[in-house]
């Protein structure tokens, strides 16, 4: 009895979470452009999607931006952790405090503050400003993912490498980095997904003529969203679903990659909240 009630509850919450997704998927096959009337099944939005230059450009921007921002944030963030480990406790906690600001601050304040910075610097708003903004809010995710792993790391392997004559940089790449790799990767993935979905900060730092999927959707809300957008997001959602399915069902990668995928946002939320308190 208790188990049935539990499963019913679980199902209800899942329906709540997936109802909008299902709606979007159904609408992506709707031959009528109206949102409230299903005119029949069609694949035409999927075909015209690839001819819609605006959507494709926004999609390209989104992906390139997310990859580039996540990559730069991962490099800068991992380096920051490496440097912080060698610091005294006080200076380290000051830097960690600064790192927490973008995590705990409201997106709108972060967005506005960066916008004021770019205006003050007389920068032209566009790809570069959005990229700088995304790197800024991504670095904390990388640091909060890599830092705990650094603390668990066994320092003697690195020292052993140095004793055996390795140069510090060589030892870092050969000994330390492989140990950190899973948390570095999860920092990268977190950053990537955060960039992919960000709207508010992009909204304040974008310039005319530059759109990501989020800002494009926002500008379409009032006049009605192009059904091709439904088709695109259905495709994106399905590819992630398939990807996750494979990652989780390959027995040999389960422990490394599988774990990363599943825990991405979970880790952020927990670690960010904890970091904020400290």
């Amino acid at each position, binding site marked *: 009895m208790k188990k049935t009630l539990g499963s019913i509850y679980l199902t209800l919450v899942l329906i709540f979470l997936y109802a909008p997704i299902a709606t979007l998927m159904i609408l992506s096959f709707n031959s009528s452009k109206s949102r*409230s009337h299903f005119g029949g099944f069609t694949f035409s939005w999927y075909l015209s999607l690839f001819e819609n230059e605006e959507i494709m450009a926004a999609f390209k921007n989104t992906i390139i931006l997310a990859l580039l921002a996540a990559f730069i944030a991962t490099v800068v963030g991992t380096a920051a952790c*490496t440097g912080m480990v060698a610091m005294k406790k006080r200076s380290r906690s000051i830097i960690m405090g600064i790192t927490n600001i*973008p995590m705990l601050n*409201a997106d709108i304040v972060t967005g506005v503050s960066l916008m004021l910075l770019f205006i003050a610097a007389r920068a032209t708003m566009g790809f570069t400003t959005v990229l700088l903004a995304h790197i800024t809010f991504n670095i904390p995710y990388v640091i909060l993912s890599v830092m705990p792993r650094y603390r668990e790391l066994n320092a003697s392997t690195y020292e052993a490498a140095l004793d055996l004559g390795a140069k510090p940089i060589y030892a870092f790449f050969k000994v330390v980095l492989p140990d950190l790799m899973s948390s570095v990767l999860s920092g990268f993935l977190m950053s990537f997904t955060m960039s992919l979905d960000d709207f508010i900060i992009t909204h304040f730092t974008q310039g005319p003529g530059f759109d990501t999927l*989020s800002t494009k959707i926002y500008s379409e809300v009032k006049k009605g969203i192009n059904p091709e957008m439904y088709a695109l997001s259905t495709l*994106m959602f399905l590819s992630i679903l398939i990807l*996750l399915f494979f990652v989780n069902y390959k027995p040999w990668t389960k422990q490394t990659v599988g774990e990363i995928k599943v825990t991405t946002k979970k880790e952020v939320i927990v670690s960010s909240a904890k970091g904020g308190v400290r």
Partner: protein
Amino acid sequence: MNNKRTRYVAAPYLIWSIGFIIIPLGLVLYYAFTNADGALTIDNVADIISYVNIKALILSIAFSIVSTALCLLIAYPLSLVLSSLISNSSSILSLLFILPMWMNSLLRTYAWQNILERKGVINGILTAINLPPLYIINKPPAILLGMVYDFLPFMILPVYNSVSRIDKDLINAAKDLGAGYKEIFFRIIWPLSLPGVISGITMVFVPSLTTFVISDILGGGKILLIGNVIEQLFTQDSDWNAGAGLSAVLMIFIVISMLITAKYDKEDIR
């Protein structure tokens, strides 16, 4: 790795954080406390007490308190159910709860328009089974629903994390010693899950306090939250001083909510 030179590897980030975190926040404060001519003034910040702004702020606070409470009310039992299931299937289940976050959140929020509309999905179902239709689109309940929907995963994950980490032996021991369900819940499960609950509250409260997207999409632009006011000041009115002034006020509320949660967190862990 305690080589002194290693520290300098953090230099790029330090420069970055000064340039893109500290200076921008300083700029918000600068604009907040100056007028268009650059003269010092507190008018921008004091502007919060104007009728429109204070109404938006109170409404935002009310919305975010209710949506945070609702998220907790949904997420807590869910976490209990999830963690009571076999550990293997629950990892796949928890994946199911994260998965929606990978679809664009604006689009998912927008989809609620279709569901809630006058002739939307819900009313289609309601009229089909001869029930009166529900008109909540462009009204406060729709915004609240959007907030709960958008931020629920941010409550589920930390709460589930802390609930699932509770040592089952503790619960079994309490049972052996004759504790009832009520006692087990209030004296073991709840106190041990509090850190997760508190991080969940922080994760939901701040974004729902400051959102302008959800009220824009599901409120039909009729209901102004403090986020909407700030957004309009910056993008439509180009009044950066006034916008920065209200942002500074918002920062105060964020800091207060962080301090409150930090205080409770420390007290309850002990």
